[in-house]
């Protein structure tokens, strides 16, 4: 590494600098979305400044368990992941995609809804950057880009935060997505004590750092950040063996372990809702009484519902065993065939938010071992 920190767009930001950065983004017309305390968890929501960030809060996570906890310090990003992912904003859970009204006996298509806000995300973790990259691949990179996603994605500003702690449910390292950030951000922050190492990942990010109070970052500071992230990588408990995984799962389709999972699985769909890459939706047409206005709504759907695989005559996947197998093998096997990448980024949300404590990492190894 011959470049100095400053040449690489690295700077030291205090909390005042971060607050200025949020204000700057708002001034530029962005809606800043970041972590804040709400509804029994750290959730992503609109924020106005540093005062809204969950200072001094963290969480405890295990399979089926999430508890908010106080930290001994007042770190702003001293937690890992809440129930929500950025999917909520880029690929909204409920969206009106068409509306028409009848006048003089004819239906007229109404103009689309107002443009979505220009988002700036603050606090995007490495696994979440990877998840956005997965959604980009799925929703943008084929012949027909998804226009609603594109409208939200194209102007997105991403301020990532590197993890300096790991939840026991995290397995990013084995999926090759974290804990350090590599690409897909404008600025990457690493929280070190009372301030942040800010590293630019784009020209826009460099400009944003320049626009707020900052100091050049020393080589020592950069090394500190690298060590903190490396330390997290070493402390990850869970992992998935990805070597040849896509093929090994395809050979394990008749594994008796699927039945074992099906006994525990509630088919509630929580895993798919919290997954940052599950993108499936259903479409509902509605009409009013009297029938003079019709609307088409798109809603998050789940492959765990019966209607998901309904085709003429009935559902294809009638058993919970078939649905869990479909979900897991899609994430880790068929996704590779379809998109040349895994659909799982190792965030562990499906583990934490499964009421039945079903642990993807364990189920994968058991399925493969018994396949």
């Amino acid at each position, binding site marked *: 590494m011959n470049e100095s920190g400053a040449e690489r767009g690295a700077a030291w930001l205090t909390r005042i600098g971060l607050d200025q950065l949020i204000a700057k983004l708002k001034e530029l017309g962005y809606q800043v979305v970041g972590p804040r305390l709400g*509804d*029994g*968890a750290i*959730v992503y929501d609109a924020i106005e400044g540093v005062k809204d960030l969950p200072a001094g809060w963290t969480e405890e996570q295990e399979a*089926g*368990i*999430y*508890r*908010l906890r106080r930290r001994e310090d007042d770190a702003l990003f001293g937690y890992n992941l*809440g*129930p*929500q992912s950025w999917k*909520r904003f880029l690929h909204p*859970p*409920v969206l009106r995609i068409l509306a028409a009204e009848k006048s003089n006996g004819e239906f007229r298509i109404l103009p689309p809804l107002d443009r979505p806000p220009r988002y700036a995300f603050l606090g995007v973790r490495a696994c979440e950057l990877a998840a956005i990259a997965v959604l980009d691949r799925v929703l943008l990179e084929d012949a027909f880009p998804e226009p609603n996603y594109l409208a939200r994605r194209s102007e997105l500003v991403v301020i990532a935060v590197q993890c300096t702690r790991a939840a026991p449910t995290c397995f990013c390292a084995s999926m090759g997505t974290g804990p350090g950030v590599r690409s897909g951000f404008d600025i990457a922050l690493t929280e070190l004590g009372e301030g942040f190492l800010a590293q630019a990942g784009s020209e826009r990010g460099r400009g944003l750092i320049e626009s707020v109070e900052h100091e050049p970052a020393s080589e020592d500071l950069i090394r500190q950040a690298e060590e903190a992230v490396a330390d997290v990588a070493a402390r990850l408990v869970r992992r998935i063996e990805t070597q040849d995984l896509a093929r090994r799962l395809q050979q394990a389709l008749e594994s008796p372990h699927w039945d074992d999972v099906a*006994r*525990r*699985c*509630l*088919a*509630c*769909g*929580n895993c798919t*809702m*919290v997954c940052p890459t599950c993108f499936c939706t259903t479409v*509902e*047409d*509605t*009409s*009013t*009484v*009297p*029938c003079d206005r*019709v609307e088409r709504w798109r*809603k*998050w759907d*789940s492959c*765990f*519902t*019966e*209607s998901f695989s309904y085709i003429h005559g009935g559902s294809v996947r009638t058993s*919970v065993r078939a649905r869990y197998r479909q979900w897991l093998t899609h994430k880790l096997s068929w996704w590779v065939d379809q998109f040349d990448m895994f659909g799982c980024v190792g965030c562990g949300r499906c583990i*934490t*938010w*499964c*009421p*039945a*404590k079903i642990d993807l990492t364990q189920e994968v190894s058991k399925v493969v071992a018994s396949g």
Partner: protein
Amino acid sequence: MIRGLPRKPRIAVFKFASCDGCQLSLLDAEDELLAVADAVELAYFPEASRRMLKGPYDIGLVEGSITTHHDAERIQQVRRQCRTLVTIGACATAGGIQALRNWKDANEFVRHVYARPDFVQTLKMSTPIAEHVPVDFELRGCPVNKNQLVELVAAVVAGRKPNIPSHSVCLECKREGVTCLMVAQGAACLGPVTQAGCGAICPRFGRGCYGCFGPMEAANTASLTEIFRGLGRPDSAIARDFRSFNAWAWQFRQASEEAERR
């Protein structure tokens, strides 16, 4: 359902053993009520109007469970008069809270509650409408959700399928951004085995789901029972969790009896 009908669909509302809350939900749909009354012919709705027209009807909305001999005969007549029969609410669909008698001696209740038990003639069991006649569609809930009721009427008027999901409440919580009470607080919540449709109203106000919409498709009550035990909930409480408004729905019935046996 009735696409191309040359006149407004004729709707009738019938009441069996129930509290009236479900049919009241239709009257409670204040914003839509006038439009609904205009788009359909409310031919028989004693709670709303003295005008009671004779059948046949295009759609019969049936509230309440069957608890007397007289009701058991009357539902046969109702079925014959309705082209499409829709049960509304937990009583009509699952037997209601009054199905708690199914585990007890109903005559004992009669003896203790009424001054003149000899005036009361009742069946031993409270049973859902579908145990007596074929049912074409069911709206769940205690009471039904007003939006689902209006959606049903709107679908009938437009001749389309109603958007009534049969998946879990969890999907509604997650779409709404409600943090899971079971995972984040260790609360007992029936959401993972209960059919959606209420808009996750209890979890949104910080309470676990009571299961008033009854079992969802593929409800895995055995697994949820294990989870509740893991939360330290005694079997007696688990039996009561499943034994409420939809106690007689077979998935919940099985679960409460299983917990009670422990």
